[in-house]
């Protein structure tokens, strides 16, 4: 038995959005001479455009650093980035599994937020050592002592030794580096044992195939080795191994305790999935490392190409995105209104938005997306059970015995001033009050159980607007609960539009139907004929609005000099028309399909 190098520290950073994770990571890299300041792009780790624009991290980007500690020894640090958003809990658990320690950043002026807490609990479940760091002590509003007290009261960690830093100004970063050496354990494992490497991420490279991001737990892997994953029989020859410097730096081999990458001309991401264990095909380990829980889609929506002929392009785009994001699932689907497209599953609303944005930006495709939905459990009168996430696939009402909907446990942290507004909102959203705890004079933790379909629409925005942005919110799926659900249909000019139908709670069906009709009336352009917009439940009309017929659409004068102008005007109008879908004889702009998200006007 050979223990791994004792001078390796594998860790990640847990922080709420805006609490300074990327800034601290940048500082650590800078202080260890990893990147010269000049070469640094604003924030190194967040490399996707969307990540940088939104200030969030989605993909895990590991980086290796060398640090000469006060004891005179040189240590290797592997920092594995973690996404901060609730949607990416799955990705967080992946990066945690590759680490021994986690730095917990808490904003000295804001204290602990809901999402931070969720990730801290995940880290504790994974037996990680946690090092609290109080950041932004340079702010006039900083209250480091209160932040420390919150860490002790809420999480139960000893925060007395927590470094007080300003990542922005570079204050006390050295203390953090020393603490990493001091508090985080060296990796355990056996370098002589058969190879066991946990795949915590992967991406597809056009030249090298799938690149596996791994944490080697036991043994070693070198170029020329034959490897395989535990979940598949396919064997690959390793063509390259290396570390993240950042950027990929090839090495001869990776050893127990190390974090790095493996390339082996792997063509399909399905063959060596994230969460699987890589072993040596000629001297395999007896059993895999414990994987982490399988990714579960929480939100679903239909994605259709605006131009029907671009179906294959969309398919290609989704496949490519899936190569880098195993949590995206999709299957072909057909809509009467929208034609051929895909039903896609996401980790949450943010994940959905990001995928939609990436399709449009990175693949230059115009898409129509349907309103997000959750997966309902349907129990039919004949006893058969099924899960339905697409309202148009719901069996006829007469065949349904009852339905169940997913319920989440929601943690809301807020200053006490806004409790009333939050509780009103939760009540409107059919929430069940569970508990309320005063963390200190300025912060209260509220726990509610809420139906998932009530929070996928505008809950987060509502929380933010009702508390002027002071509250934070996180949720986890709890299970299914029986509920009075109905299918709300929308009829345009008397014809049902499958892409606009939705499953809603009986009590809110009427309000939803009415609001929806009002919104659609505004969003549907006037046609040459009058268009009734109706909401119906099981054939019974519950709301109606009318889009009046257009009465003037003409260029009054058209003489010699006007012909070119008139032609341009018509071309523009035609261009707009191309972005529309025909539902029966009604032409509807693609934005309309998102209109149904707007359930409230307040």
């Amino acid at each position, binding site marked *: 038995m050979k223990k791994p190098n004792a001078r390796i520290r594998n860790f990640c950073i847990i922080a709420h959005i805006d609490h300074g994770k990327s800034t601290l990571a940048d500082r650590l890299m800078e202080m260890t001479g990893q990147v010269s300041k000049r070469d640094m792009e604003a924030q190194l780790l967040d490399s996707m455009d969307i990540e940088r624009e939104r200030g969030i991290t989605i993909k895990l980007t590991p980086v290796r650093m060398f640090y000469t500690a006060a004891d005179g020894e040189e240590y290797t640090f592997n920092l594995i980035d973690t996404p901060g958003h609730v949607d990416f809990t799955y990705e967080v658990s992946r990066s945690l599994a590759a680490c021994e320690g986690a730095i917990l950043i808490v904003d000295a002026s804001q204290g602990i937020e809901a999402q931070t807490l969720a990730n801290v609990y995940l880290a504790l479940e994974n037996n990680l050592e946690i090092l609290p760091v109080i950041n932004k002590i340079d702010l006039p509003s900083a209250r480091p002592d209160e932040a420390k007290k919150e860490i002790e009261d809420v999480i139960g960690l000893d925060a007395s030794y927590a470094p007080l830093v300003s990542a922005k100004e570079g204050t006390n970063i050295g203390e953090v580096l020393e603490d990493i050496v001091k508090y985080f354990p060296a990796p355990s494992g056996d370098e002589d044992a058969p190879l066991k490497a946990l795949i915590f991420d992967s991406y597809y490279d056009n030249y090298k195939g799938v690149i596996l991001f791994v944490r080697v737990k036991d043994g070693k892997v070198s170029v020329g080795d034959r490897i395989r994953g535990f979940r598949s029989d396919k064997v690959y020859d390793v063509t390259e191994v290396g570390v993240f410097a950042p950027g990929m730096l090839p090495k001869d081999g990776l050893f127990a305790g190390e974090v790095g990458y493996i390339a082996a001309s792997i063509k399909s991401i399905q063959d060596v999935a994230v969460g699987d264990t890589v072993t040596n095909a000629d001297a395999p380990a007896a059993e895999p490392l414990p994987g982490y829980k399988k990714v579960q889609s929480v939100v679903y929506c239909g994605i259709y190409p605006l131009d029907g002929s671009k179906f294959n392009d969309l398919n290609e785009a989704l496949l490519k995105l899936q190569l880098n994001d195993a949590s995206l699932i999709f299957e072909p689907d057909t809509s009467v209104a929208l034609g051929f497209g895909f039903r896609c599953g996401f980790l949450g609303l943010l994940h959905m938005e990001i995928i939609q944005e990436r399709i449009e930006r990175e693949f230059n495709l115009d898409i129509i997306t349907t309103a997000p939905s959750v997966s309902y459990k349907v129990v039919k009168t004949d006893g058969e059970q099924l899960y339905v996430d697409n309202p148009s696939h719901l069996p006829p009402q007469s065949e349904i015995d009852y339905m169940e909907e997913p319920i989440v446990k929601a943690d809301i942290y807020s200053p006490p001033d806004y409790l009333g507004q939050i509780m009103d909102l939760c009540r409107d959203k059919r929430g069940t009050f569970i508990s309320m705890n005063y963390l200190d004079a300025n912060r209260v933790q509220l726990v509610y159980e809420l139906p998932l379909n009530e929070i996928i629409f505008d809950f987060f925005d509502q929380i933010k607007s009702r508390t002027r942005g002071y509250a934070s919110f996180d949720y986890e799926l709890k299970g299914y609960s029986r509920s009075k659900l109905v299918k709300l249909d929308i009829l345009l000019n008397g014809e049902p539009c499958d892409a606009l139908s939705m499953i809603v709670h009986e009590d809110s069906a009427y309000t939803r139907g009415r609001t929806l009709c009002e919104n659609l009336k505004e969003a549907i352009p006037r046609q*040459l004929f009058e268009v009734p917009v109706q909401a119906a439940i099981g054939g019974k009309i519950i709301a109606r609005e009318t889009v009046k017929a257009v009465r003037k659409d*003409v260029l009054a*004068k058209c003489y010699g000099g006007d012909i070119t102008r008139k032609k341009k005007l018509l071309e523009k109008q035609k261009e707009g028309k191309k972005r529309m879908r025909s539902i029966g004889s009604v032409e509807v702009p693609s934005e309309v399909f998102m209109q149904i998200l707007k359930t409230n006007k307040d």
Partner: protein
Amino acid sequence: MAGIYVHIPFCKSKCRYCDFASFPDKIGLAESYMACVYREMAMRAPELRDYAFNTLYIGGGTPSVIDESYIAMLVAAAKKHYSLSNDAEITIELNPGTVSASKIDLYKRVGINRFSVGLQSANDRLLADLGRVHTLNEFITCAKLLKGANFSVDIMIGLKGQTPEDIGQAIAVADMYGASHISMYALTPEDGTPIYTDYLNGELPDGDEVAEQYAFGVRELKKRGFERYEVSNFCKRGKESRHNLNYWRRGEYIGFGVSASSCIKDVRFTNTFDLDEYFKCIISNHFAVIDRQEISPAERRDEYVMLALRTAAGVDTAEYEKLFGVSFAAEYAAAIAKNVDYLEVTDKSVRIKDEYLFVQNTIIIDFLES
């Protein structure tokens, strides 16, 4: 069939809705300007030697604001450089505030046989609102001078505070004083014109109200024997504007002067909108074209259909087949089927039904290819 257009970019003052090239403060340049126009006509003549023209239209601006002798010279120049048929339709636009008996007399003597009078409204308050320089009375004086001549009257709808009575009165006045042709235009508030602020402030009637006014106007005109032959043009039998019909039949035309447009063979071109630039070009023996576009066969078909569908007669399917070598019904089967409720289809023509002429854009779009 081919037409000649001449643009006279001078006015007494600029109306609040006017988006045309016209320079009220530059009227002192009229003499030089007209000299350049004659010169431009001469310059263009060689390449149009084979053309037979049968209409001449003198528009503006206000052609009647400049000295009538310049107009006489202009007609003479047109006849000198181009083969203008003996029975050619020669039209001049008049502003009622700028005419006199001698002017009209000279116009008639040089061969002008059609007059287009800008009345716009029979309500003096609305006229003042529009920035028109004339009153209803001045129109009546002008119409009396034109007695017995073939003349058209322009009126507008969609004006601030306009009532159906105002529209009915304008039509009645035009009819009573002998107009054989009436153009009824919906005000188009163009960005950059003073009236655009009225539009931005929501002071102008909306599309629904204008549609109402239009329908009312069409009924009034019909009662008085004015038949619609294009969305905004109405006339007594046989009194259509041949010059304008040529535009809607996608005929060829040559334009002279600032901002004038031309369509010769399959090329469209437009002169500069800048008076100084126009002078400089012509004096240095260059054309003043700023924009030139070759029209592809597909665009030509689009233009033909788009323009024909403006007219009450619609697309003459036999003519279409003769021009483009394909059957209209076959070529546009999908668009016809889709709009079947809005079209009147016979074996000779395809036209937009009367009640849908005012919402024609949506229908025409389906007929465009390019």
